């Protein structure tokens, strides 16, 4: 049976892990490769690098990080952040990453996802959806600059994808630029549209839950996961073992991602997997260097 995946995420800026903490098993806490090796041994099912490098000139550094990681770690690797062209994707794939995660560029130009999927295959195109619950506090309608041009220019897409601010149903809106910019797009409909365009997976982050450690946004995760036919990774809000269980069962997610929780070793991947396994969730056991199942 297909196992639910547990995925650690590393924030990387200028080639260094942000907020690196030195633990006994890591010689250089700021080195993404060292961190990747640690997570590999811990039983991570995949690895995500989120490149938050601000300056354009330093963007190439991530390629070196990916290359060095792929020399030593043999598990699926996804890179997100700052991907704006087909060449960016090609360079990352050639460097040894398996999937790229795209958010802002997809919202700016949804056709880009179609082109990327056609050229490189859906299996390596992940669309990152940053979603925030539409509440009464967002009573003002989006400002014109927030709505992408292509959405304003197409009546059909506008009707299909815009957030219905009049609705009483629970709704989530797509955000970009690291959660700073609302875009007037309904997150559930957007995920479906991205699947149609050729996305192979959705990396769903709840902007409400992110950083709270109060748990994943279960209604959002479930809504999106049940609305698309491609795998969904739940992200944002992991704080304890129970949260992972909820996301992967009630939330119907195929995978769960966490960054700081694993980074600061508040929980280890091994603990999460053991907890899930005891509760009947199928996870891949942690395999030791000797190849023996340690779970």
């Amino acid at each position, binding site marked *: *049976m*297909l*196992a*639910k*995946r547990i995925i650690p995420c590393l924030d990387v800026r200028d080639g260094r892990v942000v907020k690196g903490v030195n633990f006994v098993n890591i010689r250089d806490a700021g080195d993404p490769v060292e961190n990747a090796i640690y997570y*590999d041994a811990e039983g991570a*099912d995949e690895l995500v690098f989120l490149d938050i490098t601000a300056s354009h000139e330093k963007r190439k550094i991530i390629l070196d990080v990916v*290359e060095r990681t*792929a*020399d*030593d770690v*043999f*598990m*699926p690797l996804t890179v997100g952040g700052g991907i704006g062209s087909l060449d960016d994707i090609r360079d990352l*794939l*050639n*460097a*040894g*990453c*398996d999937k790229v995660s795209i958010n802002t560029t997809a919202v700016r130009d949804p056709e880009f996802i179609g082109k990327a999927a056609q050229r*490189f*295959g*859906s*299996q*390596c195109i992940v669309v990152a959806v940053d979603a925030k619950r539409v509440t009464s506090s967002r009573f003002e309608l989006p400002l014109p600059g927030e709505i992408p041009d292509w959405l304003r220019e197409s009546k059909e897409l506008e009707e299909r994808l815009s957030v219905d601010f009049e609705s009483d149903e629970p709704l989530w809106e797509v955000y970009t630029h690291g959660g700073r910019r609302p875009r007037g797009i309904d997150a559930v409909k957007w995920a479906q549209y991205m699947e149609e365009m050729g996305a*192979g*997976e959705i990396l769903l982050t709840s902007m409400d839950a992110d950083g709270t450690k109060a748990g994943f946004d279960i209604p959002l995760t479930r809504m999106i996961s049940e609305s698309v*036919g*491609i*795998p*969904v990774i739940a992200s944002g809000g992991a704080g304890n073992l129970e949260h992972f269980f909820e996301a992967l069962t009630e939330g119907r997610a*195929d*995978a769960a991602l966490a960054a700081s929780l694993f980074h600061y070793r508040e929980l280890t991947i091994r603990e999460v997997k053991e907890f899930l396994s005891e509760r009947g969730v199928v996870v*891949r*056991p942690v*395999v*030791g*260097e000797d*190849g023996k*199942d340690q779970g």
Partner: protein
Amino acid sequence: MIAIVDYGMGNLRSVEKGFLKVGVEAKVTSSPADIEDAEGLVLPGVGAFRDCMANLKRLDLLDTVSRQIEKGKPYLGICLGLQILFEESEEFGTSKGLGVLRGKVVRFPEQGLKIPHMGWNTVRFTKVPPPFEEIGDGSYFYFVHSYYVSPSEKDPVAGMTGYGVEFTSMVWKDNIIATQFHPEKSQTLGLRVLRGFGDFVKRYA
């Protein structure tokens, strides 16, 4: 030396680095001469079946690869490298494969399961190819695919995996070993498979 056949489909770096990690000499190449000289060949790759066949043809590698397989050279097919061994695929209409093994490539049925089949799943051995001798039955390997092979003969089937349907995730026939999963992405056990293929090639040579 093992030739990793480069036909412009996806990232071969992980396969090359995987062999390097376990001390097996392997080289990424698209030269027919290299492929003929090699003691074994690996055909990795993800993407579309039709593009894969078209690229092999365009690079003049189709005959070379077929001939080496027929000659009995050890062959490791990964993902598309498994699929193209069969007669045809229903991806984008019907595309012809190498036809080394009988059967076809079909899409997972729509039955509420997520497609692609992406992530770690177990492989139950129906027979154990040499590179898998030290690997436990039912071990987890990494998969990412939307199509799977449906052999019309039982004999080459070496491993089965369940995802809505029970599908063939590994075949073994003489010099041919091919997996739907990605050893180069399957951590410790995957590296063991690559090392095991290296040994298989040495014994064969």
